[in-house]
């Protein structure tokens, strides 16, 4: 009902990722999980970063929050500007202050995000009191209000529940309640509904949309699901093999994808709203990020690829020049041109 409409993108930029480069050490070598990623999250909007597993979208989220695995992950270049402050240079203490209060996060698996031996109400209380000098009973009342806000029936009693006593959908609602407890400006939601059944997913997305509307917060949604993006996000950034290949308003990108990967994915998806037939497919599989192809990373799977694509990484540019969509493809002009 209350899905956020497309909002003006001229609103102030809250979070700006500039040319971010993140490396992760793996058993097989060092991978560049994010390679020159730039995006802007404006006030009061939902921006979705969509991509397949291993494309680097979760590492992008962790980079923003300063939560990369300590020994194996590092930001090697670029900036994460939150209200102008570069978080890549912030002290651990400053990052702790920001996380939860200014930028909150919801993970895919609520069971790992909640303490298994602590009642959910207490966890929210603790979260509030870690950041604010609130009295226990006042924090407690707020916790119950929050549970009510995210649509948990009988919130007074449910606050006394342990996580294992709640269903998957309820746990994810508790996570949302915790995330919005301190009224953060930015909510980063990493696959928030992927573990949920489809009817429960619909409920939780509805709740997220309503709450982001109520609180005037912005959401950075990380997902693999183009259907969820279509129903929920204002703008979309498509990520492939560590790079953003296309970025723009959802209706624009879905209506006329400019990157062959976006076009291929949208065409190859079995759709609930489509008559069955043979699915056009994308050949091959995503590249190994330890030794990615030198030019465009999609070139080995792309039917439009020429010599330049195999040698030179494409620049990110506006296409068409007067539109709102940026694309990183040498042949964007030809995509969808038949």
């Amino acid at each position, binding site marked *: 009902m209350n899905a956020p409409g497309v909002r003006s993108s001229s609103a102030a930029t809250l979070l700006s990722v500039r040319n971010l480069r993140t490396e992760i050490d793996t058993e097989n070598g060092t991978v560049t999980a994010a390679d020159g990623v730039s995006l802007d999250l404006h006030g009061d909007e939902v921006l979705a970063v969509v991509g*397949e597993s291993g494309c680097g979208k979760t590492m992008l989220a962790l980079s923003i929050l300063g939560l990369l695995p300590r020994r194996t992950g590092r930001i090697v270049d670029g900036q994460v500007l939150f209200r102008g402050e570069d978080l890549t240079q912030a002290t651990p203490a400053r990052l702790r202050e920001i996380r939860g209060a200014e930028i909150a996060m919801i993970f895919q698996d609520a069971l790992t995000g909640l303490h298994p031996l602590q009642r959910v109400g207490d966890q929210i209380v603790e979260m509030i009191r870690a950041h604010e000098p609130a009295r226990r009973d006042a924090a407690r009342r707020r916790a119950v209000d929050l549970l009510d806000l995210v649509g948990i029936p009988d919130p007074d009693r449910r606050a006394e529940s342990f996580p294992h006593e709640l269903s998957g959908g309820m746990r994810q609602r508790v996570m949302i309640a915790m995330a919005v407890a301190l009224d953060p400006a930015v909510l980063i939601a990493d696959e928030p509904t992927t573990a949920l*059944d489809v009817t*429960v997913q619909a*409920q939780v*997305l509805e709740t997220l949309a309503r709450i982001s509307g109520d609180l005037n917060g912005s959401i950075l949604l990380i997902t693999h699901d183009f259907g969820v993006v279509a*129903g929920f996000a204002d703008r979309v950034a498509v990520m492939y093999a560590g790079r953003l290949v296309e970025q723009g308003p959802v209706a624009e990108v879905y209506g006329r994808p400019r990157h062959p990967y976006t076009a291929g994915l949208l065409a190859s998806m079995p759709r609930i*709203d489509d008559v*069955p037939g043979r*699915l056009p497919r*994308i050949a091959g599989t995503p590249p190994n990020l330890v030794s990615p192809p030198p030019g465009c990373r999609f070139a080995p799977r792309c039917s439009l690829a020429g010599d330049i694509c195999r040698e030179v990484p494409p620049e990110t540019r506006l296409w068409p020049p007067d539109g709102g969509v940026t694309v990183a493809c040498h042949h964007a002009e030809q995509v969808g041109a038949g």
Partner: protein
Amino acid sequence: MAGPSSPHHDVAYRHSGEDRNPGSGPTPLLAVEGLAKHFSTRRATLKAVDGVSFTLEEGRSLGLVGESGCGKSTTARLILRLLEPTAGSVRFRGRELTTLSQAEMRRVRSQLGIVFQDPYASLNPRMTLRNVVAEGLRVWHPEADIDRRVAEVLERVGLAARFARRYPHELSGGQRQRVAIARALAPGPSLLICDEPVSALDVSVQAQILNLLADLQHELRLTILFISHDLAVVRHVCERVAVMHLGRIVEIGTRAQVYGNPRHPYTAALLSAVPAPDPARRHDGRRVQLSGEIPSPLDPPSGCTFRTRCAHAAELCAATEPELTPRGVDHPVACHFAADLPLTPAP
């Protein structure tokens, strides 16, 4: 590109045991009736599958669709007797499977292939692909034929014969699922049961596997029982669809009937909950929002098990459990009000 007269198909028939003539009458390939599996815990009985009946004709595809815990995977395991049913009957080519001895069941299994969801868990990492694929062949195949047969099925699923020497870890997820399909096909089954075969795969790889399954169905005249939580995928693959809720089938019909004219409120709710990749649909206001969550199968509601989430529920629904009764031609629905409800079809 072998047609129905391929060597593979002959192999399938030679070992089919009975009913050698495909045109010999209306016996369905698979007939499941009153199938049930109850698990007893100390406090309660969990009815994972509770009276499931359907038939599947040779060469056709049926989708079993529902949310987690609805009993769709348990149904598959009961058919294969990887689990022993509490009650009910499974007839394959007219032959009752539930009473076969383990030895007899092993022979029948060469006719029943299965592909599981997770190709990372289902392939033994210490075996070469040749041995993975040959696993089901050993029971009855002369050793000398095995290499030839492995190469044949690998090629059939789009993998070069040289893959036989490789190990699972050298493959991508999509390639692994091809191997899992090759393994299921190797003994020449006539029924292929696919349990969430593309759920663990990335979108760009899903289409490859779905197309492969469609090709196999046509080329080998395979019969497919396709189990999935994903209504978009089922719509793509299956000619007929059965919707399950808490251990029971609540609606079964052709693809056109179930998606185009759903008659059970649960089916309609499922269809409307699937997000279509089309931003224009966001505000069309036709979403059916279910309140509440799936009831616990340990303590299901009385009467219709969907009534606690159903906007149309009436007193009758709490008192009496609705039967799965036909609406129109071959479109049974288990809802007291199936004839009257204004329900929205898939977008």
